């Protein structure tokens, strides 16, 4: 029996020396190069480039993006995203097609895509590396390489000659102009019906492309309103914001269905809460589908912040997040207040007999200890407007041996609160903003 063991071994030896065993006609390198060249030829082929409806996350809205690739590994990217002073309206960068586990399209240098990728410490679900999937009915399908859980699928469709009209650059610029005269970070808008006594207060998240309706009220005032909690993605297309999901329901006796807002005419207006009126713009248009005439304007009233004290009581503004008309005063503050760490604002009123309502600074002493220098206040709150009446002196906590510069601290607190016209805005669930429209000073606070 053992001698038969030699038979398969002998057969293996005889078979192992046959020449010409190549499965492919070309080497792996040659085949990879051909595949890359083939995809590149497809990318550069359309005369007007490609149009992509790009949704970075499932929960976000979408961007229309025009991509035009050339033979020299450059790609022109057009969007209606106005960040970085409009840099991403029209940008040309380098691209590369690589072959790894499959073909990949890499946008090699900074662009609209990498700007989105970097948002929220690079946790926002955008991307700038894409795996090529296939060609389907003349469209090229890519899938994001860096989303491990739910990869974004991008469909590149050949663009028509007038595809640029899908971009809403003018609309994006006009929306920016609505808030540009108010030097604050948080934008709140009021959308009023012309023919009904109804207004919605809303906010727009520019990079997520989401719109949130927070409050419905008679357009003549803010009392008697109704809190809302409706957020949907949107896409800018030409002169319209098109919603992913409609806002529907009965608000203050009005049956409403809003699928989008078409905006087309800017006009001058003013906000009259300070001794000198603040010039702003109004943007008028109509609702998509219903054609109800509406007006969009920036608002000093933020219903979502009006009840801040029900949710948040401690606010911390790190050095660098206090602004004079949009410019950080962090460096100056560090020079004026030795060892300053942050501006602090406490609103603890859950015990009416012993409220802790105070504002001031956290100071790092040279000895390594910390001092809280805080000034108590008595507030008067109307909506999201806060008037502060401060005690004359600062109270020191923790290391009470340090000497503080009360005059310098007063300067910054006064700028934020003088005139009794300080408004609080909710920027995100964890960030609030104090804003004094009469002098343009503001501070962003982390809510703890």
């Amino acid at each position, binding site marked *: 029996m053992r001698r038969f*063991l030699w038979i398969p*071994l002998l057969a*293996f*030896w005889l078979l*192992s*020396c046959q020449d010409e065993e190549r499965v492919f006609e070309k080497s792996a390198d040659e085949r990879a190069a051909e595949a890359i060249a083939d995809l590149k030829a497809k990318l550069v082929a359309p005369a007007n480039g490609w149009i992509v409806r790009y949704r970075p996350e499932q929960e976000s809205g979408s961007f229309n993006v025009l991509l035009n690739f050339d033979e020299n590994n450059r790609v022109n990217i057009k969007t209606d995203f106005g960040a970085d002073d409009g840099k991403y309206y029209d940008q040309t*960068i*380098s691209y*590369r097609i690589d072959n790894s586990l499959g073909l990949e399209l*890499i*946008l*090699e*240098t*900074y662009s609209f895509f*990498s*700007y989105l*990728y*970097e948002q929220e*410490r*690079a*946790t926002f679900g955008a991307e*700038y*590396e894409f795996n090529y999937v296939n060609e389907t009915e003349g469209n090229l399908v890519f899938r994001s*390489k*860096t989303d491990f859980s739910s990869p974004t699928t991008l469909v590149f469709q050949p663009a028509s000659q007038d595809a640029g009209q899908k971009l809403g650059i003018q609309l994006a610029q006009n929306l920016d102009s609505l808030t540009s005269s108010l030097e604050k970070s948080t934008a709140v808008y009021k959308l009023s019906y012309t023919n009904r006594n109804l207004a919605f207060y809303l906010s727009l998240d520019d990079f997520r492309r989401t719109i949130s309706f927070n409050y419905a009220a008679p357009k003549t005032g803010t009392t008697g309103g109704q809190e809302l909690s409706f957020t949907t993605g949107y896409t800018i297309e030409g002169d319209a914001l098109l919603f992913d999901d409609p806002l529907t329901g009965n608000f203050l006796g009005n049956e409403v269905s809003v699928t989008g807002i078409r905006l087309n005419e800017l006009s001058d207006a003013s906000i009259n809460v300070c001794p000198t009126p603040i010039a702003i713009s109004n943007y008028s248009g109509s609702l998509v589908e219903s054609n109800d005439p509406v007006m969009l304007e920036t608002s000093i009233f933020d219903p979502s912040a009006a009840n801040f004290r029900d949710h948040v009581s401690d606010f911390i503004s790190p050095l660098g997040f206090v602004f004079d008309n949009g410019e950080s005063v962090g460096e100056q503050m560090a020079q004026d207040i030795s060892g300053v760490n942050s501006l602090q604002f406490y609103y603890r009123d859950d015990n009416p007999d012993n409220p802790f309502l105070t504002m001031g600074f956290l100071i790092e002493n040279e*000895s*390594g200890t910390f001092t809280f220098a805080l000034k108590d206040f008595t507030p008067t709150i109307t909506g999201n407007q806060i008037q502060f009446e401060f005690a004359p002196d600062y109270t020191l906590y923790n290391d009470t041996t340090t000497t503080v510069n009360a005059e310098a601290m007063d300067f910054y607190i006064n700028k934020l609160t003088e005139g009794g016209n300080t408004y609080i805005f909710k920027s995100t669930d964890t960030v609030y903003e104090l804003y004094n429209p009469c002098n343009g000073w503001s501070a962003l606070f982390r809510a703890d």
Partner: protein
Amino acid sequence: MRKLQILLCGLLVLSSCYQEEKIESPVITPELSTDALDVYIRDNFLDPYGVAVRYRYVDRYVDPTKRVAPPKEELVVPLLNFLREYWIEPFISVPNGDAFFKEHVPAEVILIGSFIYNTDGTVTLGTADAGARITLTEVNNVDDADQVWVFRQLGTIYHEFAHIVHQRYNLPPNFQQISPQGYTSAGSWFNLTDEEALRRGFVSPYATSDFNEDFAETVAHLLYEPDFYEKYINEQANCTTPDCIERNEGRALIRRKYNAILAHYEQNTGVDLLQVRAIIQAKY
């Protein structure tokens, strides 16, 4: 006998395919880029120093668990000019510095536009890999008028360049014995304040993370920090409080590291770091 059979089988298999097999790998000569930025890099970094500057994003240069954004093209040249002024020129201008720089400069400098974002919420400012590569971050914030950015960038460059020195020549003799009790357990350095690190004999909390980081941090602070001597070397006079005494004890430990590092560079590379520091400080 059975062993002999196995041996014969092995010989059969091994010897069966040796006939007429030649290795004929084609030599590929890549075409040189004519892109203005690539030409600039070739003329100013690759040809004179043998440094390849990678500004186009390639994912294998970054740990796949990290997230980064690529550099803005228009900021690459300003960043490279900054490197020439604050990194190359100070080193090549001192005796033995030109040879030292050319011999030790890493073969690759990787430019990242953003920070390197880690999954634990921290950010990495730069990395050095086996003396062959330095990764610089925050290119998109380039602004040599912004002292905070300048110091952070210089701290990163000098820190990573110092790693190459200890990777080549080891740490100075007895460096590990200077403050052995002060090092922190893995991943906990960021719980220390600057003050606590100083009392332990370190120029920064990160320096407490291990011996190599201590070496690199001390070299970096020595080169870029204008108040290096006041903060870390010179004893505070009239010291009577326990806090002050502890800080002075920390400074005594840093002085030993400082002297060991200066001697180590002088002995192994012929470069006087104090001369390099003087050139850097004169640029502020």
